């Protein structure tokens, strides 16, 4: 019985994993690493793109820009990196890991979002409400939205008061999750996420004026491993198309 078990284990184990390694013919599929604020807009754009280009399939992985920067500097197999800022793509270019210069694609905006309070009435003063025990922002250490959130709090001279109440999300998606589940009473989130159906249904927000922080210029960059990859360059062109520009605008990005 034991021998049978061993044989079964050995047979069943290592075979299926390798089957996926074969390269398909035609345009190569690409994997994009994207900042979490792009979740909804990029999901819809990739659906359109994949329909138009059934040959070279595009897959997106979302996370914090800083995490992707870290992974890409350790040679992660992503073809294009959509950062929530321009700094990380520039640093990758300086390290010689990119196939070209970073391309700006949008300006990010922030909102003050809450499930139970209505920030649209009092703006940032909502943060002073005694009901507010926890404030979610993305981790400023590796999420550009977190750095801008900190700037906003300092701009309104609220940082010192709010600091003990801060909870940090790994990226802006997780920060939104804290706010949506009510784990945090308010959150400083990406406008693009606040406009998503999931968040629209769940709460209310106040759009923070662009004067409260330095511009959040977002750039993408094609990585070295994708130089000469037709799908990567087609997708880059697609991002400049009116369809893509309109979608970005619809999801609250400045162009």
């Amino acid at each position, binding site marked *: 019985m034991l021998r049978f078990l061993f044989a079964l*284990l*050995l047979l069943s184990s290592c075979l299926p*994993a390798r089957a996926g390694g074969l390269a398909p013919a035609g345009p190569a599929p690409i994997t994009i690493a994207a900042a979490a604020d792009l979740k909804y807009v990029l999901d819809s754009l990739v659906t359109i793109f994949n329909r138009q280009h059934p040959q070279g399939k595009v897959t997106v992985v979302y996370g914090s820009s800083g995490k992707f920067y870290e*992974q890409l500097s*350790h*040679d992660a*197999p992503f073809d294009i990196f959509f950062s929530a800022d321009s700094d990380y793509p520039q640093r990758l270019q300086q390290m010689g890991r990119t196939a070209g210069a970073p391309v700006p694609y949008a300006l990010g905006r922030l909102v003050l979002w809450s499930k139970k309070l209505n920030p649209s009435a009092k703006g940032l003063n909502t943060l002073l409400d005694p009901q507010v025990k926890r404030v979610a922002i993305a981790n400023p250490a590796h999420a550009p939205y977190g750095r801008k959130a900190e700037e906003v709090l300092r701009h309104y001279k609220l940082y010192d008061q709010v600091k003990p109440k801060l909870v940090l999300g790994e990226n802006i998606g997780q920060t939104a999750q804290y706010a949506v589940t009510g784990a945090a009473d308010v959150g400083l989130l990406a406008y693009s996420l606040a406009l998503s159906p999931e968040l629209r249904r769940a709460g209310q927000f106040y759009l923070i004026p662009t004067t409260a922080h330095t511009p959040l210029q977002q750039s993408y960059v094609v990585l070295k491993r994708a130089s000469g990859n037709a799908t990567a360059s087609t997708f880059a062109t697609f991002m400049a198309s009116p369809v893509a520009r309109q979608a970005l605008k619809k999801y609250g990005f400045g162009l």
Partner: protein
Amino acid sequence: MRLTLALAACTTALLLLLGLPLAYALASWRGRLKPLAEAVVSLPLVLPPTVIGFYLLVAFSDSSALGRFLIEKLGVSLNFTFPGILLGSLVYSLPFMVQPLQAGFGQVPRSLREAAYTLGKSRLTTLWRVLLPNIRPALLNGMVLTFAHTLGEFGVVLMIGGSLPGRTRVASIAIYDEVQSLHYAQANAYAFTLLGVAFVILVALYWFTRRNAARLS
């Protein structure tokens, strides 16, 4: 889910091959440095998986000497690949295989082994026909625990996996991603599947252990 099962099965199979000689050596070794070796084997039990993942990430990177050697000389890139997360799992689950096996070997009376040798059986035959059948519950325990423990692995894969769909995005990472995307239904589907699989595995293990114990007594 297929990727998760493949990772768990591969880890279990490889750790069985590596763990058997290691556990056997540890069980029969009486040296003064034994606690040191035991501590090394058990380290993954107490280390946060992110620590293991971090060291592996740095070691496999093309900015480290080892990583450059692997990539340039052997053409093997381990970060963000299936072989990479497999290697991470081998480290992560090592004690779950070795500890039960070592305990099992330790419980087999010396006289049994010596009797086999006096009857002219080779070491390999003794291992195969005398020792292994006698530690069957321990073998099963080690395999099942290794499999189940690897199913739930998160931290190591998070660090060196990169969440690549179909390549390194195992179920635990998928749950994390789905929750962050506010897709609670999908997250729940993954989580519930994992819960079910883990529970069934453990029930089967304890059922088998009980039956085995009843048969022995």
